[in-house]
């Protein structure tokens, strides 16, 4: 965004700022129309109206624009771009125009031939002419100012002191809201001939226009399909207890529900209210697109050279390997792990129980083995719904394959929990205290002799069995932690793809002026005042 400024020497009383668009610097002579912001003493020039024109028609057009855009657009001054020497009659004519379109102050900008120097002056009728005024001419790129969105800070609506807000927002708002002014180009046959950034033909992209036309029926179709899907999902059939529990545990269903929600946001027929909603919709759309593209890529890679078959073939040996490793681990625990001496009887019981479990699990896997390939093939098709869905399915498969580790963890944890609970209660009995449930505190209590005897006995038994249980608990918790970490990483990746605002990032690199920004550069300009 380039603004260039230059000013004249003079006693600065009230600095007058004129914002002039770059596209009008080569326009032919005419009058300037725009908005005069008196609080900041600045004039924002939006376009140049060329000769010949009828003043009445110009005024009508301006009042029409004022009605539509709610911005007080008026005639600000005159612009003369003469190829030859300065014509005296032209300058007189331009001054007379000031009387027709009464505006205080009347700004006159003129450029001579090919010289780099412009001259800018003002005519003040009412104020005393002895005061010299300083004029700053700021040269701005209309297209970029119009497209850049200045994001206001979050708390300006409650702040009554509006002069703390940026004064330049008024300039940006003026240009951004005058879209209707920029709709007429020089090929239109209207009463007024304007020059502005679109005067060579309204800038639009065919693809964007086609997409806009096509998006309406597509949105309607999507909304219809989505409503059908949500009706099916919410039907009673899928809400029976075992099934609903299953759906809540599988992360794939959660991810699919999430994506359905996103699709609903995009396909809603209401236009986005403000900038944040528009950016959100755009981000969701880009994220969905990338997701589906990556998913289809993954699918095309997976389905060639019968990789699915290879995958299914390696799955069973991997499960077998895991089971064998677990069996070795349990044998180690049943012996003397790390030199610790376990309680033989409890050790054997627990070890045999877990070994039997593993045996059951392996038989189950072997039972399923002929169907694995087919299941994988059909499940792989769902990768076309998106890479996130494929990753969720992977995470669910890992969860299912390591289900026995989860079971062991639950048994070990429960046993350990019960033991610790029992120990703490009996420890209190040992010291002659009791837990008062009513008062939620520890009270002293006098026990009978036989209660004390049995309590102490049980306490001793539990205490000496503690290391064995604790070791089993530790080992299985660590295994479960490993599985949870792997699943957590996959879910982190899924969340990243879901929530990364790719549209904003791409916009930042390609069209950063859309995300606001302004810069100035001082140029050579000789301005004559009076």
């Amino acid at each position, binding site marked *: 965004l380039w603004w260039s*400024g*230059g*000013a*004249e*020497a*003079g006693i*600065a*009383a*009230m*600095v007058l*700022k004129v914002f002039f668009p770059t596209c009008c610097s080569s326009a032919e002579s005419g009058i300037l129309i725009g908005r005069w912001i008196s*609080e*900041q*003493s600045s004039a924002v020039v939006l376009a140049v109206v060329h000769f010949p024109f009828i003043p009445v028609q110009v005024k009508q057009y301006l009042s029409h624009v004022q009605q539509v855009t709610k911005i007080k657009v008026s005639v600000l001054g005159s612009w003369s771009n003469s190829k030859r020497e300065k014509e005296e009659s032209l300058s007189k004519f331009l001054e007379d125009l000031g009387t027709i379109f009464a505006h205080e102050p009347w700004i006159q900008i003129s450029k001579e031939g090919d010289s780099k120097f412009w001259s800018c002056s003002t005519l003040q009728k009412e104020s005393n002419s002895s005061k010299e005024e*300083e004029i*700053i001419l*700021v040269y701005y790129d209309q297209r970029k100012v119009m497209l850049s969105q200045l994001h206001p800070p979050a708390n300006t609506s409650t*702040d009554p*002191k509006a*002069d*703390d807000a*940026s*004064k*330049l927002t008024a300039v940006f708002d003026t240009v951004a809201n005058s879209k209707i002014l920029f709709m007429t180009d020089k090929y239109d046959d209207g009463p007024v001939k304007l020059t502005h950034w679109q005067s060579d033909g309204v800038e639009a992209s065919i693809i964007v226009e086609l997409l806009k036309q096509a998006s309406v029926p597509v949105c309607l179709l999507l909304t219809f399909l989505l409503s059908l899907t949500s009706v099916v999902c919410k039907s009673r059939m899928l809400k029976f207890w075992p099934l609903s529990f299953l759906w809540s545990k599988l992360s794939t269903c959660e991810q699919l529900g999430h994506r359905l929600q996103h699709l609903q946001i995009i396909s809603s027929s209401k236009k986005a209210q403000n900038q944040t909603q528009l950016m959100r919709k755009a981000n969701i759309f880009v994220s969905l697109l990338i997701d589906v593209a990556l998913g289809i890529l993954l699918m095309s890679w997976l389905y060639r050279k019968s990789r699915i078959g290879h995958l299914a073939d390696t799955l069973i040996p991997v499960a077998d390997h895991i089971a064998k490793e677990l069996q070795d681990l349990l044998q180690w625990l049943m012996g003397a792990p790390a030199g610790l001496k376990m309680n033989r009887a409890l050790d054997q019981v627990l070890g045999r129980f877990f070994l039997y479990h593993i045996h059951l699990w392996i038989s189950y896997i072997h039972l399923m083995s002929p169907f694995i390939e087919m299941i994988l093939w059909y499940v792989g098709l769902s990768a076309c719904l998106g890479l996130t869905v494929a990753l969720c399915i992977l995470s669910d498969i890992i969860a299912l394959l390591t289900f026995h580790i989860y079971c062991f963890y639950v048994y070990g944890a429960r046993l350990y929990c019960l033991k610790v609970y029992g120990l703490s209660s009996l420890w209190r009995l040992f010291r002659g205290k009791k837990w008062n449930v009513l008062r939620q505190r520890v009270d002293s209590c006098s026990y009978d002799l036989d209660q004390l005897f049995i309590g102490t006995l049980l306490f001793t038994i539990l205490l000496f069995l503690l290391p064995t249980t604790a070791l089993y608990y530790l080992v299985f918790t660590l295994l479960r932690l490993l599985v949870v970490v792997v699943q957590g990483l996959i879910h982190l990746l899924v969340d990243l793809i879901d929530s990364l605002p790719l549209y904003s990032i791409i916009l930042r690199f390609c069209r950063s002026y859309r995300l606001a920004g*302004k*810069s*100035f*550069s*001082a140029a050579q300009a000789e301005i004559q005042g009076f």
Partner: protein
Amino acid sequence: MAENQRTGAPLALRRRHHSASCRELAVRAPRLQLRALSTLTSAVWLAAYGLFVLCENSMVLSAAIFITLIGLIVYLHFVKVDQESLLIIGSLGIQVTSSYASGKESTTFIEMSQVKDVVINEAIHMQKIIYYLCILIRDPQDPQGVSEVVPLFQSSKPRLDCLIEVYKSCQEILQQRETAPQSSEIK
């Protein structure tokens, strides 16, 4: 004419007086020396050649060339600041521009209503005192307070004599703001 505070390399200060209320001050750092560049490149390539002789893998050589090129591009584009300039337009604002050796320019514009003052601050760094010019940003809640301090000329770090000249130019423009009638306050 001026010198860098940290390295003592010579800097050039250029003042352009566009008008009574518009000044541009630019500090230009010395350009990248061919001597330094060639010594560094030769050192890297000699080291790579030595590695190649040791491990007989030609990938080392291509990797060294690649690294040198990428490193040079990254240095020119992100690190080496050629010129830092300050443009003050009274009643509009202050613009701070840094232009890098690769041509990239990054600008920051601060509106005049947000600028409280431009001052030279002292800071104690290790065993010496350094001076830096900074812009004080007004706090919207507290009229006497300062919400932010924006330091200027961070890469070229000119010495006090240069800073004093810049300070004087800035103050001339800022004084006009005080004497001008505050019609923008009338609502």
